[in-house]
């Protein structure tokens, strides 16, 4: 047990700390504020305090807890709302009211709740780490698979069926005469990646329901993506949309140093919205971490690791998990804050030189893996992180370091956002290196995908080039063919890429619908090109009822789409080919 020697913001130095370890968790002062040792100098320990240090005094006690910062893993995670240190915010609310008092404690998993445990192995079976010994129906959407914790193996001596709390033993494992109790809960140090059998490349589409992602710049299961953009360009809405609609087993939303009202908004929407495929409430497959900008800065650092640890734990059950982090810039700023207090040598813009490696130690925990233990299973963690570049200038260090790590970039464009083109993802600068990884998936669902996608991207590229000419000579001076190309590009932008998160129907677009929508526009282009060739003028094309009909495709529900589009196509063929107007 040591005592406080110095306090300077989130930096606390404690003396008499012999025997303490780097990264050991400590409790500071009478209130027991949570801190982590980040360095040792003689008998002094350098501590980063995860809670507000206001009012601490020199000489107050500092207690080493003999463990590193860990997450509790077990039934009760799904649907929970945690702060950056995995304290349950609802429990805190019940105990101390609507304002957070430092030092207040609340465990991550409820201790008194009983879970219905069904064994999957029996007495006498040999088990080892990662083996699934039973299941708990945690929510209607998530079956919690109870795994043998790392480092344990032996023969099942006894295993029980029935209702248990997370702390009651459900199984006993014997090895060399030593018996270990297994409970529904385990712990894992958050800064250490959870092991797996083997890593594979990201593959298969992570269906998001967002057309510009799924169709144009797809994200693969196990992939890593970044969404940089100035304020108000749509980072948060994009991540919220991903967390809502991504067709995964479970999503984790980490609000790191961002707004409280936004958190309130996202929480309430998850209590109302239903998953498009199962019809169940979204919160049955979601975990929230809310460490808002006014909560202690250093805990932002922890929040990201707590989140990714939970993601890996569910991955190990054989699930596909998506983790979104809003915003990794605030996380990096927490690092900078601590580094400044420690008087470390500052790197670019004051960020510590290890910022890049810390960022990649987070993103590298994404991936698709063969899980440890039996039965054989594969799981994945996909990560999407927002970046908030100062002045929307992507040359700054956090964006640049992130770009070196990720394989899909959704670059948000301020000028698109100003015009209220949402999602304001630039089709000219965004990219996905997962096009090959999802090719098989798309070919199975929509054989023409590669062709249609490439064709549409080409038109958008040509539009950008023509745009410069238009600015010099005006739109009317262009040849008819170019005018038609501009019209088509506009339709791709407005009637396909634009997608309102707030439109009841359009908020989630099934990939099949997305494919048909774009094909319809490309078909329109094909037919109208023929019209031009046979002497029709641009005016008749612009005023065609089809332009309007196509713009309304978004409103057609996912279910009716195939039928409705067939009708549209036959009308299109009639009116555009024959020139006849369809009433």
């Amino acid at each position, binding site marked *: 047990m040591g005592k406080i*020697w110095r*306090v*300077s913001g989130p930096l606390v*130095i404690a003396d008499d700390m012999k025997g303490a370890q780097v990264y050991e968790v400590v409790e500071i002062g009478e209130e027991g504020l949570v801190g982590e040792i980040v360095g040792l100098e003689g008998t002094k320990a350098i501590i980063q305090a995860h809670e507000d*240090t*206001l*009012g*601490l*005094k*020199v*000489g107050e006690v500092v207690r080493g807890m003999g463990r590193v910062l860990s997450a509790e893993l077990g039934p009760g995670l799904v649907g929970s*709302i945690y702060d950056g240190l995995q304290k349950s*915010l*609802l429990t*805190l*609310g019940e105990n101390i*009211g*609507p*304002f*957070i*008092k430092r030092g207040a404690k609340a465990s991550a998993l409820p201790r008194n709740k009983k879970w219905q445990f069904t064994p999957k192995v029996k007495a006498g079976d040999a088990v080892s780490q990662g083996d699934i010994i039973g299941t708990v129906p945690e929510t209607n959407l998530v079956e919690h698979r109870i795994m043998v914790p790392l480092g344990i193996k032996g023969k099942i001596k006894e295993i029980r069926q029935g209702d248990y709390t997370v702390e009651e033993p459900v199984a006993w494992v014997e090895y060399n005469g030593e018996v270990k109790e297994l409970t529904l809960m385990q712990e894992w140090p958050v800064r250490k990646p959870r092991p797996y059998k083997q890593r594979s490349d990201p593959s298969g589409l992570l269906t998001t329901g967002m057309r510009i992602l799924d169709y144009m710049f797809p994200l693969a299961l196990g992939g890593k993506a970044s969404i940089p953009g*100035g*304020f*108000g360009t749509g980072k948060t809405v994009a991540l919220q949309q991903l967390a809502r609609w991504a067709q995964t087993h479970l999503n984790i939303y980490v609000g790191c*140093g961002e*707004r*409280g*009202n936004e*958190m*309130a908004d996202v*929480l309430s929407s998850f209590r109302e919205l239903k998953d498009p495929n199962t019809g169940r409430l979204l919160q049955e497959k979601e975990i929230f971490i*809310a460490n*808002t*900008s*006014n909560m202690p*800065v250093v805990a932002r650092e922890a929040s990201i690791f707590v989140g990714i640890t939970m993601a890996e734990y569910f991955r190990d059950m054989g699930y596909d998990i998506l983790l979104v982090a809003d915003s990794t810039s605030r996380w990096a*700023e927490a690092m*900078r804050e601590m580094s*400044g207090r420690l008087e470390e040598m500052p790197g670019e*813009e004051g960020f510590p030189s290890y910022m890049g490696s810390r960022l990649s130690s987070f993103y590298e925990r994404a991936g698709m893996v063969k899980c440890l233990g039996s039965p054989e299973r594969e799981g994945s963690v996909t990560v999407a992180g927002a970046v908030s570049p*100062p*002045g*929307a*200038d992507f040359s700054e260090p956090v964006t640049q370091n992130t770009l070196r790590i990720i394989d899909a970039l959704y670059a948000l464009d301020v000028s698109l956002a*100003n*015009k*209220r083109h949402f999602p304001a993802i630039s089709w000219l600068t965004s990219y996905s290196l997962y096009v090959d990884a999802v090719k098989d998936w798309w070919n199975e669902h929509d054989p023409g995908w590669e062709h249609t996608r490439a064709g549409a991207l080409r038109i958008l590229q040509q539009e950008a080039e023509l745009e410069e000419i238009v*600015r*010099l*000579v*005006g*739109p*009317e001076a262009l040849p008819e063919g170019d005018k038609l190309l501009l019209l088509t590009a506009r339709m791709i932008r*407005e009637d396909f890429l634009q997608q309102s998160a*707030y439109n009841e129907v359009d908020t989630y677009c099934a990939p099949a619908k997305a494919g048909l929508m774009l094909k319809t526009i490309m078909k329109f282009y094909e037919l109208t090109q023929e019209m031009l060739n046979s002497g029709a003028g641009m005016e008749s094309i*612009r*005023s065609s*009822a089809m332009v*309007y009909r196509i713009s*309304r495709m978004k409103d057609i529900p996912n279910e009716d789409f195939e039928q409705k589009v067939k009708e549209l196509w036959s009308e299109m063929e009639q009116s555009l080919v024959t020139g006849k107007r369809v009433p």
Partner: protein
Amino acid sequence: MDFSSLYVKEGRAISKAKGALLIAESIPGIQFNEMVDVRLGNGEVKSGQAIDISEDATIVEVFGGVSEVDLVGSTIRCKGETLKLPVSNDILGRIFNGMGEPIDGGPRLIPEDYLDINGEPMNPALREPPAEFIETGISAIDGLNALVRGQKLPIFSGSGLPHNRIVAQVIRQATVKGKEERFALVFAAIGISYDDASFFMRDLERTGALERTVAFINTASDPVIERISTPRLALTAAEYLAWKQHMHVLVILTDMTNYCEALRELSSMREEIPSRRGYPGYMYTDLATMYERAGRISGKEGSVTIMPILTMPDDDITHPIPDLTGYITEGQIVLSRNLERKGIYPPIDVFLSLSRMMKEGIGPGKTREDHNNVFMQSYAAYAEGCYLREISTIIGAEALGERDKIYLTAADEFERRFISQGESEKRTVENTLDTAWGLFSALPEEDLKLIKEDFIKKYLPKYRK
């Protein structure tokens, strides 16, 4: 503020001074961030705060600064407290300085409680999403960037632009439909000119709003260091009125640029490593801990809505002050020098402006069913018109096609009839939406792609008869 009863410790000579910082011997029992009184050799007493404490030394930041000469024979007295604001129901109608001391010559307050001016973070899981539409009577705000209770929505202005007049208009006109509730205003002047401060105070007095107002005044001639505490005092008063007295509180903070300059000054005195343009790296968090005090709490009456004003240095929205603010607040109302030059009041740049909480506050039962569609269509049409305006400056308007000319005119009309309005003109939200519909009449009907067909049939003037 009166702390005499709270004094607990006295002592220790001061060994070194550096600008605003005093390095004293270690003071046993002093708390991190505790308030202290520094009694200088000449008898003068200054306030300070312990910003770094250790067994070796105590570093005190002195409000107002000190010099080496004053050190001889000076002492530090601990107050045993971090900075607190005495509160009671009687603060309404009162005027305080940037340290929370009454400056209106009124009676002494009998405090019901002393509240830490830093507040405590609201538990995000217990927040109620803001959703009540505040009608300001200004079309560019209500129609396109609606404000709701519990939101923090700043005005990004430039020097010489009419932000004060706009905010005064908002204060005069803001109402929430069909509600008879307790409403209060908290006004903080931060380093603004005496004239600007008295402009607001006079307007409040003229309209009788002063009795429902608590004001904290730090003008340009008052101590810079008190600009750090002024907005925090205001927000503490606001929280007290909202959460203890169940009132709906609107907080006006002006000018937050002066706050940020004070923060930069302090940071450089502390010799901290600066981030962009000399502002401290923690400015985001520092501003966030204030602005996040806006909100609603589930199950509680009352709300805190914050409308800060800031002037963008050089009209540059990427400058760290507006930039970090925009990353924290729930949108921004941006004023444009261009529109101002065209004689348009209020000169609100609707492209750069944004209200992130708008969608929750509008729609059937709140404003009108067509609100969201009108909002989207207005943006699309105005954006098109402005784009064509840009092109036509090079090629001339004559070179545009017929359809394009319509949009060009529509953009001008939009500025003249929708954005522009009188300083005492209070438009209902229906009126605002109908004004937009009037402008849509000039557009080809099939171009109204962002509006539901039923709404077109219901609200487009030609079908309305």
